[in-house]
């Protein structure tokens, strides 16, 4: 709504991130806005997203397919390509706004400070280059040892770190299984010890056994490095097992950010509730419960709360007034008119 409102929301988001438990904020995303220009108008893929990532924390991002999760990841890496455009906002990485860096500066930051493991990254490995060369290539921009014994040793250590045999260095991507490729991708991503690792569906193409191994590897590395991880995905089971806090996106906005236990025990936003209810289980066989209705148009978003056309609790107010992401309970940010603001929080 009004400007002050948005800003209020941000301070709260920041406050929750940095809340006095001794952990500091490593990445502070404020009011990020990204659009894709199309002949029919701008697609508002990310529409005012704010969140604060604490050092060493695992933060999950889930939400409807097409809700803007990958766009956030790409923006933070300055990898949005036309017709995409970052329209506004900041992303402060230890105080430096990465969105404002020049291309040259950003190239140094990528990998060294913030790394991205993309959706289907396994397929982004260069098919005609050995794994070894791909690691060295990644180092080139950062003045790291490019050849010689030192490089060989570091590659060997790196591969061992992610659970790969040293021989893998000499192999081509097609000689590796999906799980091995994904480990190689992780090896490249962590090779310069970034502070923030963004993993966009790192295991969605892998089976549960390999998934568990990869996620355990990622967690070990995260702890060794003290890095923060943003895990993007759809698998709520994976989120439950891996992240400390979960952000739920809908139509380019964060609609809820809660600690993982609270999110599962007592989801507050109606979309979070329906999402959690739609999880199939092994306990009973039955109908799949999707959320009725279509995802909203991002070209011409509905007025008011973007979820109102599908929300079972929608009220008159929801059709006109956009709910701000606010602190509704301690540590819980929710964008929904059903809840009163939590008072008396810093």
């Amino acid at each position, binding site marked *: 709504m009004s400007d002050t409102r948005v800003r209020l929301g941000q301070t709260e988001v920041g406050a929750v991130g940095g809340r006095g438990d001794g952990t500091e904020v490593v990445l502070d995303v404020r009011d990020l806005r990204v659009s894709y220009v199309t002949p029919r108008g701008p697609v508002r893929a990310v529409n005012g997203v704010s969140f604060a990532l604490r050092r060493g924390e695992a933060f999950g991002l889930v939400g409807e397919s097409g809700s803007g999760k990958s766009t956030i990841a790409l923006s933070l890496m300055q990898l949005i390509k036309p017709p995409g455009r970052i329209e506004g906002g900041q992303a402060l990485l230890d105080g430096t706004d990465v969105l404002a860096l020049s291309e040259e500066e950003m190239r140094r930051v990528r990998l060294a400070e913030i790394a991205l493991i993309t959706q289907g990254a396994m397929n982004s490995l260069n098919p005609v280059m050995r794994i070894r060369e791909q690691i060295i290539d990644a180092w080139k921009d950062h003045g790291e040892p490019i050849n010689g014994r030192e490089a060989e040793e570091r590659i060997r250590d790196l591969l061992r770190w992610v659970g790969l045999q040293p021989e893998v260095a000499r192999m081509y991507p097609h000689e590796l299984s999906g799980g091995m490729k994904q480990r190689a991708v992780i090896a490249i991503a962590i090779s310069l010890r970034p502070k923030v690792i963004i993993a966009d569906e790192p295991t969605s193409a892998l089976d549960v056994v390999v998934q568990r191994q990869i996620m355990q590897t990622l967690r070990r590395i995260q702890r060794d490095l003290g890095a923060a991880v943003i895990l993007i995905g*759809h698998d709520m089971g994976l989120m439950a097992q891996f992240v400390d806090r979960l952000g739920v996106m809908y139509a380019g906005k964060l609609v809820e950010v809660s600690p993982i236990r609270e999110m599962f025990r007592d989801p507050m936003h109606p979309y979070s509730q329906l999402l959690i209810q739609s999880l199939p289980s092994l306990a009973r066989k039955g109908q799949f419960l999707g959320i009725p209705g279509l995802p909203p148009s991002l070209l011409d978003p509905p007025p008011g709360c973007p979820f109102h056309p599908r929300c079972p609790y929608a009220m008159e107010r929801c059709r006109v007034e956009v709910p701000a992401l606010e602190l509704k309970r301690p540590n819980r940010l929710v964008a929904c008119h059903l809840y009163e603001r939590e008072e008396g929080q810093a």
Partner: protein
Amino acid sequence: MTTLLEARGVTKIYGGGLFRRDRTVALEDFSLRIEPEPPSITAIVGESGSGKTTLARLLLGMTMPTSGAILYQGKDLRKLSRREWRAFRRDVQAIFQDPYEVYNPFYRVDHVLHTPLKKFGLVKSDREARERIVEALEAVGLRPDETLGRYPHQLSGGQRQRVMVARALLVRPRLIIADEPVSMVDASLRATILESLRTLTRDFSVSLIYITHDLITAYQISDNIIVLYRGSVAEAGHAEPVVQEPQHPYTRLLIGSIPLPDPDRAWSEEQEPSAIGRLADPRSGCTFASRCPYAMEMCLERHPPLYQTERYRVTACYLYREAPVLASEHLDEAFARPGIPGPAVAASGAADEPTSSP
């Protein structure tokens, strides 16, 4: 009634030219029959590299078996006439894991949807084509006005995947082979898409082979499940017993590895192989022995056959060696026919019921 599609003793080996150590047995002696009636849903699950995509590509005629054959209406794919091949291409549709492979980046999404309608002469006018396309897109939760006219890179991963599902629905095939069709969409959409696939199989008499590593959705949607491990069937049969009371140590591992959507229930750890299992040579004996907590001496000698431990289940594991052997070409005899109410989970024919700790 001729079998719609059959894999008969199919083996697929990659590589294996001069450098025999590069040889990969992607699928070994695999047989399966898909009958035209009643429509069935068969799930194929297994870890990464277990041969699932290889099987899909074989069944679709995209690659030829090293030995054995794929038969469409009783005829080897290699011997189909042009007309038969066309009929096959319409009857058997694919939905792929990585939809990027299928899209031509220079064509709009519309092209992917119009082509099959035109190719098989399924519509009389552009108007009818448009109606069919709109209907199919809505069935998978996409907004036609915002999907049509776009290029593949302008859609999110999940949106691209759904266009592929819509495309398969469009031509009303008799069998859909779907390789990880919903791995990239959120839980609620996954539910919507799988429900639309299930409705389709029921309403239009279409069978479905659902390939996935997601055991939960496999269980939810399928009549029967085949668990593959390194190219061989580890366990197969009616979804209920396979998932609720898995027998093969690999199936148990898979089910035990599912991350539960409950932060208070920790992800379980993989059990260590037994002392004997640690000695296993990957080239002989049970392919799972080197990871198996129950591996015994006999497991190191020869890969186990399929033991029919129950009416609707087979398990390739010596722990069940007292049960009768089912020849691998008769795998589908252990399948429950759709529509049959779930058979009671019978007492297993286990010889050595494994205990949970070695």
